[in-house]
């Protein structure tokens, strides 16, 4: 600053200007308080987020949208719809209805919890709810398979329908497993991916088994 020593300001020019730093516009307020917006906006925002994640599951690419903003709405909706569709399909008609729904619900959630715990114990870097979110969303192909099976069963329940259902369920099972592997395997140490993929395979296998062996009363 030696060169500025001879710069002088004449005393009759007032020094003026804004001392305060201009605050960024209204956006921080809008982000933190969503109480004032219409309910429709809130719901639509959440629905759009859920819809975007559904699209990510159906076309699994290595994106981090599912992981970054996890939510459990999608898994809940899928689990409830799957459990409702699987209801009433037991061979013994004396004790169906209640246990079937609770059974499916409990299996899905406890299965997801066990897989998450397993992947954490094996040294995974993903958090508990992120993993639950991914596993829940990847039930979507199997829910679609259940819908298709139900429709096929409306048409009749012979060998051909069984073959169609088998093909559809196997394809959707493979899709689910691949989709969840695409999201979850990256968070594991590279030499232990197989150890994490196997329980996921078993989990979706059991759900696929429940779908395939469903016979309406």
């Amino acid at each position, binding site marked *: 600053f030696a060169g500025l020593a001879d710069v002088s300001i004449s005393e009759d020019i007032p020094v003026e200007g804004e001392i305060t730093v201009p605050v960024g516009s209204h956006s921080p307020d809008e982000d933190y308080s969503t109480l004032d917006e219409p309910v429709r906006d809130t719901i639509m925002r959440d629905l759009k987020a859920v819809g975007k994640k559904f699209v990510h599951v159906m076309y699994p690419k290595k994106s981090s949208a599912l992981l970054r903003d996890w939510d459990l709405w999608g898994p809940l909706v899928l689990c409830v719809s799957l459990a409702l569709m699987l209801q009433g399909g*037991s*061979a*013994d008609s*004396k*004790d169906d209805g209640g*246990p*079937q729904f609770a*059974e499916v619900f409990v*299996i899905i959630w406890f299965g997801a919890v066990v897989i998450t*715990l*397993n992947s*954490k*114990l*094996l*040294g995974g*870097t*993903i*958090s*508990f*709810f*992120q993993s639950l979110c991914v596993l829940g969303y990847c039930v979507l192909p199997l829910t679609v398979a259940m819908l298709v099976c139900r429709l096929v069963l409306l048409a009749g329940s012979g060998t051909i329908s069984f073959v169609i259902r088998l093909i559809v369920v196997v394809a959707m099972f493979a899709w689910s497993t691949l989709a969840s592997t695409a999201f979850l395997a990256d968070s594991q140490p590279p*030499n*232990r991916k*197989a*150890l994490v993929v*196997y*329980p996921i395979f*078993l989990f979706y*296998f*059991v759900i696929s*088994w429940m779908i395939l*062996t469903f016979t309406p009363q």
Partner: protein
Amino acid sequence: QGGGSAVIDMENMDDTSGSSFEDMGEMHQRMKEEEEEEAEGEAGAAEEEDGEFLGMKGLRGQLGRQVADQVSAAPCSSPLREALPAFSLYANIDILRPYFDVEPIQVRARLLESMIPVKMINFPQKIAGELYGPLMLVFTLVAILLHGMKTSDTIIREGTLMGTAIGTCFGYWLGVSSFIYFLAYLCNAQITMVQMLSLLGYGLFGHCITLFVTYNIHFHSLFYIFWLGVGGLSTLRMVAVLVSRTVGHTQRLILCGTLAALHMLFLLYLHFAYHKVVEGILDTLEGPNMPPFQRVARDIPVISSAVLNTTAKAVALTQ
């Protein structure tokens, strides 16, 4: 990994690969093999013994892994996790972490080893205290059982198919492990609870194979061959390992006889309780006067149908 403590919990060291008790046995085994190899002209294995004297290398390895686990902080992946009041869950997870520290190659090796009975029973055999493999095998058994129950149209009167399958498999694994551990305590056998859980869990690999094959191919003679062959091999392996860790003939007999009986009978039970053949029995569960098998495939020889009849009667009477 918020909430991890810096104290190294020495209780997790019951993987006795670090203790001198077993390493003496292993060293003896290796020295014997070495003598045999020297007779054939190979003497290269001697140098490796120095680093493992008294198992110090094993001890350092285990300690080092534990320190690395607890000191190196994995990056926090989500701030939400810290806000959750679920710290007790994470504290408990850390207790189980050493038992899941495996590589896929190790799991595969242990699966294959579980079918090979060891020959050397005079010195204690090593058991890996690992829980990943046994847990996955129990879940696989549940899946196979469900498949078998559905293809045989088993009718479960109280409860659900899923609940029965899970209850049976986990009940067997945890219950029989605890029971044999208790007997081992009475018979002064050198085995810890985790090792027993691991041993019995890997012993279920034989059950998985047998049931997977025989639920799909319904020949009864095939089942008996698999029962004796595959089931017998995995039972022999467990028995040999237990015998190597027990002193005294009576104790060995009690412990191994019980384990062998329970393991083989469980396989028999799984096949018969959830299989097509038993359809007739579950429907006519009235009394001890059982009609002989009528809905059975025609390739059964006379002897095995007599055995089937007596087994079925026994099963019906106990239910």
